[in-house]
C-alpha cells in the first residue's frame, strides 16, 4: 500500500521528464531544419498550407485566425516569425508600434456575396435588404467584417440600414461565416472569392458591382524579435515571386491592386 503513491509520483516525474525531454528534442531538431511560425489570416489557410509544403528553407507552422486577433497576440508579446493579414491597416499599425518590420503588400482579393448552394434566393445586393433574410458577416475589426461594412456603407442609407438589420451573427473570422452558410444557418454572407472557391461544394458566390468593390489588400511582415528572421524573409520573398505566389494564384488570389 505504501509503495503505491511513491510509484505514482515516480511515474508522474518520469512522464514530466519525457514531456520536457520531448520539447528539448524538438528544439534540437530545429537546428538543422528551422521552424518558421507564421500567423496568418484565416482566408489564407489553403494558399499558405499549399505554400508551406513546398517551402524548403524551413518547416512552416501556421497559426490561422482573424487578422485582428493575431495582431492583438503580437501586441501582447507573442512573437511568430511572420504576420500576414487580410488588410494593410493592421500590419501598418504594428509597424508604427515597432512590433514588426516594414510590411509589404503581397496579394489582392475580391469581396463577394456568398450564399448556400442549395436554396437560391439571393441573387444580388438588393436581396440582402429583404426583411427576414439571415446575414452573417465578420465582426467589426476583422478585415472581412470591415470590408463588408465598407460595401454596405456605400448603399443608400435606408438600404444600408435594412441590410445591417439583417445581420444575425458577427463572426470572428471567415471560417465562422463559411460554416454558417454551409450549414444553411445563414442565407447570405460577405466573404472573399477565395473562401467561396475553397468551399465551392456548399457555397456559391455572387459578384459585387465593380464600383462597390473595396480594395482588398494583404500585407505581410517579419515580426521584430522573430526567432527565424532569415527564413521569415525568404518566406515573404517567395510570396512576391516564386512558390508562394504560385500557391496564392492557385487558390484564386489576385495581384495586389495598383496603388492609386
Amino acid at each position: 500500500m505504501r509503495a503505491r503513491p511513491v510509484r505514482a509520483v515516480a511515474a508522474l516525474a518520469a512522464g514530466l521528464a519525457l514531456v520536457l525531454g520531448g520539447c528539448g528534442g524538438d528544439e534540437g531538431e530545429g537546428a538543422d531544419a528551422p521552424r518558421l511560425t507564421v500567423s496568418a489570416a484565416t482566408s489564407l489557410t489553403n494558399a499558405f498550407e499549399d505554400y508551406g509544403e513546398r517551402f524548403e528553407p524551413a518547416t512552416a507552422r501556421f497559426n490561422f485566425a482573424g487578422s485582428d486577433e493575431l495582431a492583438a497576440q503580437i501586441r501582447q508579446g507573442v512573437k511568430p516569425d511572420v504576420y500576414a493579414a487580410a488588410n494593410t491597416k493592421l500590419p501598418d499599425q504594428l509597424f508604427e508600434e515597432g512590433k514588426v518590420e516594414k510590411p509589404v503588400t503581397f496579394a489582392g482579393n475580391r469581396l463577394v456575396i456568398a450564399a448556400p448552394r442549395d436554396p437560391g434566393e439571393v441573387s444580388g445586393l438588393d436581396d440582402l435588404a429583404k426583411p427576414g433574410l439571415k446575414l452573417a458577416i465578420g465582426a467589426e475589426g476583422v478585415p472581412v467584417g470591415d470590408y463588408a461594412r465598407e460595401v454596405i456603407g456605400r448603399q443608400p442609407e435606408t438600404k444600408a440600414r435594412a441590410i445591417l438589420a439583417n445581420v444575425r451573427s458577427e463572426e470572428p473570422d471567415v471560417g465562422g461565416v463559411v460554416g454558417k452558410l454551409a450549414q444553411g444557418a445563414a442565407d447570405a454572407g460577405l466573404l472573399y472569392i477565395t473562401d467561396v472557391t475553397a468551399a465551392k461544394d456548399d457555397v456559391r458566390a455572387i459578384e459585387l458591382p465593380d464600383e462597390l468593390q473595396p480594395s482588398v489588400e494583404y500585407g505581410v511582415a517579419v515580426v521584430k524579435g522573430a526567432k527565424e528572421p532569415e527564413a521569415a524573409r525568404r518566406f515573404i520573398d517567395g510570396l512576391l515571386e516564386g512558390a508562394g505566389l504560385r500557391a496564392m494564384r492557385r487558390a484564386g488570389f489576385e495581384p495586389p491592386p495598383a496603388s492609386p
Partner: protein
Amino acid sequence: MKRRGGWFGAALVGCLAVALAFLTLPLAAIFLQSSPGDLLGSLDEPGALDALGLSLQATGIALALIVAVGTPAAWLLATRHFRGRALVVTLVELPLVVPPAVAGVGLLAALGPSGLLGEPLERAGLDLVFQTAGVVVALTFVASPFYIRQAQAAFSALDPTLLEASRTLGASEARTFARIGVPNALPGLLAGGALAWGRALGEFGATLVFAGSLSGVTQTAPLAIYERFSDDFSGALALSAVLVAVSGAILLGVKLVSGPGALGGAGARG
C-alpha cells in the same frame, strides 16, 4: 499524519505549491493588470452590460432546465438498476469530454436548418440558430452532464435504509423522491448546480458555432471578451475580471450554503 515527513512529504507540498501557483497566477494577473477604474469604465459601456446580462439570463434559463429535467433523471439512474444503465450513464456524461466546438457542430447537424430535426423545428416555428434560445440550447448541452453526474452521486450516497423506511411507511416513489431524496441530497444537488452554472457561464465554442455572435442576442460575456481581445485588451481584462468574480462568488456561495466538502467529489454527505 505527522509521520508524513521526509522526501515524500516535501514532494507533496512541492506539487501542491506548483499546482496552486499555476492555477491562481492567470486569474490573479487579470486583476493585477486591470485597475478598478478600467473595470468600472468598461462596465459603463453598453455592450459589456448587454453581454453580462445575456450571460446571466441564458445561464439562468439553462440551469432551470437542467435542474428540472436532470434531477428526476439522476434519481432514476441512482435508484434503479436496469440493463444498459452503464451505457446510459456513459452517454449522458459524453458531453463532458467532447470539445465545445464539436458540440456546436453537432448541435448544428442535429438542430440547424439543414440538420436532422431542422424541418420539424422550422415547421414548429422554433428558430434556434442566431437566437438567444440557441444559446440556451448550447449551454444546456454542455453543462447538464455536470449536474446530472453530481446529482446521481448525491442520490447514490443516500442511506438506503432511509429510502426503504419511507417506502415501507407507504410513501409513493414521488413522495420519497420529493420528501426524502431531494432534501437529504441537497448539498450535492447545489454543488452540481454550481458546477453546471459555472460551466455554462464560461461556455464559448458551442455557443459561437451553433448560435453565432451578435451583441444583445447571442453574444454572451465570453464571446464579448474574445471580440474585445483584438481591439480593446483592457476592456477584455475588465470583463474577464467580472466573470472571474461572479464565478468565484457562485463557488463560494455554494460552499457556504452546503458546507465544506460539497464540491469535494462524489460524496455528497462528505
